[in-house]
């Protein structure tokens, strides 16, 4: 189960191991990934709105991705892959940690969802292109961000849509997402390294270099009354879409 067999450009071995250890607990809504379970409906509602807008689909349909292919890069135990499959897409999930892929495959089988899970480096798996490319809360864990964005762009079909989210690098995120969140146990210790966070401006620049246009980012904010919700406040976490320029 080591990463030694995979020639790794963008994966940090110690990061892959950290998440592998959490894999078994991924699917427990009250477990160590509780924060992701709460985040899931928020980011899914952004994805839903974006796909309806991009492909002009019926907002009332419960299968808006029927006939479309999707890849989720950094899929963990499949928290995003499974909803995408239920929305009708043929889904591939890619993750650096073999343990995550094992947990994801087992869960998808139980859910009777035909999702293809692959362990390893995105660029070396020989995957084709996809209508929908998602990578949520991943780039902050990646060593070579430029190379990673290039790989994401290469997977995007000509008429495709990419959806990305990540924590912002601001004083607020340093205190709330790293220090406070770990202190109160909202996320497991060692989940985030603030210096590796990327600002929206930096992220958009990398995507532009890779030939992609981007939407204005939306913030994912927290308030005691609303919980996690979409907002105009980008200081903690943000989510946006990208597509090919031509």
């Amino acid at each position, binding site marked *: 189960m080591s990463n030694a067999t995979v020639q790794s450009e963008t994966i940090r071995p110690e990061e892959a191991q950290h998440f592998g250890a959490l894999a078994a607990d991924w*699917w427990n809504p009250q477990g160590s990934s509780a924060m992701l379970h709460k985040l899931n409906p928020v980011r899914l509602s952004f994805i839903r709105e974006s796909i309806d807008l991009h492909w002009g689909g019926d907002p009332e349909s*419960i299968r808006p991705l029927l006939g479309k292919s999707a890849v989720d890069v950094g899929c963990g135990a499949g928290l995003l892959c499974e909803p995408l499959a239920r*929305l009708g897409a043929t889904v591939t999930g890619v993750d650096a940690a073999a343990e995550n892929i094992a947990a994801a495959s087992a869960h998808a089988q139980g859910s009777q969802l035909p999702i293809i899970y692959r362990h390893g480096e995105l660029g070396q798996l020989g995957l084709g292109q996809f209508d929908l490319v998602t990578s949520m809360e991943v780039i902050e864990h990646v060593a070579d961000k430029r190379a990673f964005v290039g790989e994401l762009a290469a997977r995007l079909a000509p008429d495709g849509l990419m959806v990305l989210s990540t924590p912002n690098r601001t004083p607020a995120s340093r205190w709330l997402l790293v220090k406070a969140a770990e202190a109160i146990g909202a996320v497991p210790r060692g989940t985030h390294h603030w210096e590796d966070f990327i600002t929206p401006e930096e992220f958009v620049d990398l995507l532009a270099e890779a030939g992609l246009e981007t939407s204005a980012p939306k913030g994912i904010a927290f308030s005691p009354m609303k919980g996690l919700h979409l907002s105009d406040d980008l200081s903690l976490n943000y989510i946006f879409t990208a597509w090919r320029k031509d």
Partner: protein
Amino acid sequence: MGDKRDLLILGGGLVGMTLALAAAKKGITSHVVDRADPAALTADNFDGRASAISTASWNLFTNIGLADALEPHGCPIASIAVTDAMRPGRIDFQPEEHEGSLGRMFANQTLRLALFEAARDNTLINWHAKADVVERVRGPHGVSATLADGTVLEASLMVAAEGRQSPTRKEAGLQLAHWDYKHRALIAGIIHEKPHDNVAWEIFYSDGPFALLPMLDTKDGKHRSALVWTVNEAHAKGYLALSDAAFRAEVEKKMHGVFGHVEMNGPRSSYPLSFQHTARITADRLALVGDAAHGIHPIAGQGLNLGIRDVGTLVSVLVDGMKLGLEPGDAQMLKRYEEWRALDGFSVAAATDALTWLFGIPGKLPSAIRRMGMAVVQRTSPLKTFFMNEARGMSGDLPELLREQ
């Protein structure tokens, strides 16, 4: 295997079948399991059971495409007259023209027939009638029920719609708060000489309320109402033992001649009154709807309406989640259903409960207070509007299916 559906609805009565149809309208698939034989339930002789369908419930029937089939069989309630043992003082709940009716009266059989006919033709509904459930399983990836013939039905979410005695609720260990009223409701259909003019009467006696709900005339043109007569449990045996002729005479006496001469229409039935409420209406991959979640006193005719509000809310929550790719058994959706229903279910049940106690205390002074109370309600417009909205089911935060489209 192979036919895993979104919902496994245990109990295919009025609430369970309404849920299956409302879900199907939104593309949500279901198995519906019921012990009863549909042929027996829809037999042509009237069984005396009727339900008031509130405006909100009617909106739901309209939104799922049943209104056209039901419309000719419903008797609109134009106003509700409330009196205290026919003494002076009376509240009339009469909505303004633009506010529409206070509800419609239907024989339960008519509702069942319309629901069953719609369900039979719907490929999204897999209806298993005359079937007994011998085992229920709620697992990490889904739920299943094993039928007596060995068939195993699979789904993502289990819904208990089996009524007050719900075995699924008991098996899940969901605790029930239970108040026994020590009262019994006598249910019967009556034929009366004078037309009811679409007025529902609630006549409060110290023993309990005597309610007359307008029904459509019979095929041969006789005027008809449904009777829900609440009596003290201690006196119930006596009333039930009466001959048809003697029972008829008692009913006519209690009505003080408002509708003239009275004849009985179909058999009498009765059931004990109790108020039950579950603190929790969900568990892992399980939701309770209708009387399985909360049985209430039929005094204000809200039992079925409350169940239909459960249906509207559950379907709204499921659709919102499924549009995001979440599965129907998702814990976050059930949490939302629980929170949305909690306040509504309890407030209707509690209001109905308070009304019963108020009118259940015998004596001259309570009667005077009740009459004064009614006079106050009669003159105070906001209070009257509140009670009318409650009766119509239009108060609170309404899910989409319960709104006029």
